[in-house]
């Protein structure tokens, strides 16, 4: 388990570094796919099988494809021009490092930091429990419906914004 986690973590972090530094945007999007696949493996390690599969369906099947399409639609030639990072990139790097240090410091002072995982009750089916939680009136049916409204709004908005009126 620990070995699997470490390999996945290295893959995720290395891919994420490539996403933010790669000059070729299609490569960046493909590295994003690799990082997101690693996150799906983490979900599987955490016994969240449903989320792992949904991660692959949504992020790799839809979002990454959308990114690749957008990259191809917003350039005149297939070549990359200019540097990938702006002039102040070292300030950004410094801020990011500070954020990481701050987060690590905050978390390490938290009492539950090195907690080991809770026992799953025997016969517990996370998928059906999740389904119940999403549609049960005394759980999350309202946020769930609001999320669906948000998706419809985003769909209509995206079509309206990107529509070419001629």
């Amino acid at each position, binding site marked *: 388990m620990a070995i699997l986690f470490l390999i996945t973590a290295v893959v995720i972090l290395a891919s994420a570094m490539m996403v933010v530094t790669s000059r070729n945007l299609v490569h960046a999007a493909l590295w994003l*796919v690799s990082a997101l696949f690693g996150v799906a493996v983490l979900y599987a390690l955490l016994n969240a099988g449903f989320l792992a*599969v949904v991660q692959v369906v949504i992020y790799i099947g839809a979002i990454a494809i959308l990114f690749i399409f957008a990259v191809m639609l917003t350039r005149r030639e297939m070549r990359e021009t200019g540097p990938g990072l702006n002039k102040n990139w070292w300030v950004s790097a410094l801020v990011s490092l500070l954020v990481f240090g701050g987060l690590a410091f905050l978390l390490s002072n938290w009492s539950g930091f090195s907690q080991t995982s809770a026992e799953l009750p025997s016969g517990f*089916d996370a998928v059906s429990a999740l389904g119940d939680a999403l549609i049960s009136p005394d759980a999350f049916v309202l946020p769930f419906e609001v999320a669906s409204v948000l998706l419809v709004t985003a769909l209509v908005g995206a079509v309206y914004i990107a529509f070419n009126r001629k």
Partner: protein
Amino acid sequence: MNFWNDPLKVAAVWLEGIFTGWGMDAVLAHVLVVFLGVLLLITILMVLDIFLVWIERKVVARFQDRIGPNRLGPYGLMQPFADIIKLIIKEDTTPDGADKVVYNLAPILSMMSVLILWAIVPLAPVMLGVDLNVGLLYLVAAGAIGTLAIIMAGWSSNNKFALLGAFRQVAAMVSYEIPMVVALLIPTVLAGTMGMLGISEAQQGLWYVFLSPLGALIFLVSAVAELGRSPFDLSEGESEVVAGFHIEYSGMKFGWFYAGELLHAFTFGGFWGILFFGGYHFFGLENLGPLVAAAIVLFKALLGYWVIMWIKYTLMRIRIDHMLAFNWKFLVPLSLVVLMVTALLNTLLRDASTWVMGLSMFLSNALIAWITVEILRGRSRAEREKMEGPAQAALEAVNH
């Protein structure tokens, strides 16, 4: 434990005994045995794939009133081996300006997206890779990886036609994913589980094709679109984009795409059989043993594959705007209506007997089909009158 009742388990226990007998760690031995099992499954699939080439060529020949390969070996059975040798000794080209890593990764991903599907195929109650409780979503997720492989192939080839073909194919796959997911939800609602084994088991009495013929049809149509086969083979329309996303691939790299496509079609035939035609159930014949059950599943997969070939060699290619309009304006609403009616009836008739339930489901599907056909007929009549009205008037003006 009898070998014939559970051959895989017996073999695994035997192998693990041998490995631990050599002084190997128990966990390592288990991992090794699982790995060998995966290797065995993939080998069987690849050998099967070789013969799928022969089957496809023979069947298309029959559809077109030809004989097909018949020179090499009995009934031309050795022909696919000759094809493979030809593909292997061909020059392996990489176009100028191609993105080498992505270019070489794409055929592998394409083949992989098909092979990983077989991890959840229940060949028999005791013969399946893993019984995921999100099995049907896994099927969709594997399709997502296939989509990615196609766009990688199209982009990295550094060829306009390849990119256009990939765009078309990906647009079709992404949009036909929606009716496919909705059609997959119908067996889920009926069986109350997303696991492939549970769905197979739930069809012991009545196959789901009788409960939801429209669902089976929608799944077949969206599977054909997902496969990119005719009538939805816009990605490789010869007169438009030459060969689509695999235009620049030669030799065995093209072979991977080709073999992947054939195996994909066979696999979707198999899923059609499992989800709607009872899986390994065939009038109690599956009780003879797991090997018979596996043979039943493979036979159903071959039948499904034959239906997909039948469609491919009968219908002609349609235009891309027609294809997308067909999906968004017809297939998606229809599949949603079928799903809602199925879920409603399933809840209302929870306590009814199998036959009442089956009959009412079948009749509701027939009613939906009839209403759909009536609406389509009305629409086409209105369209025709709009087109013919001016023509008729002009004709009368000439006659007077």
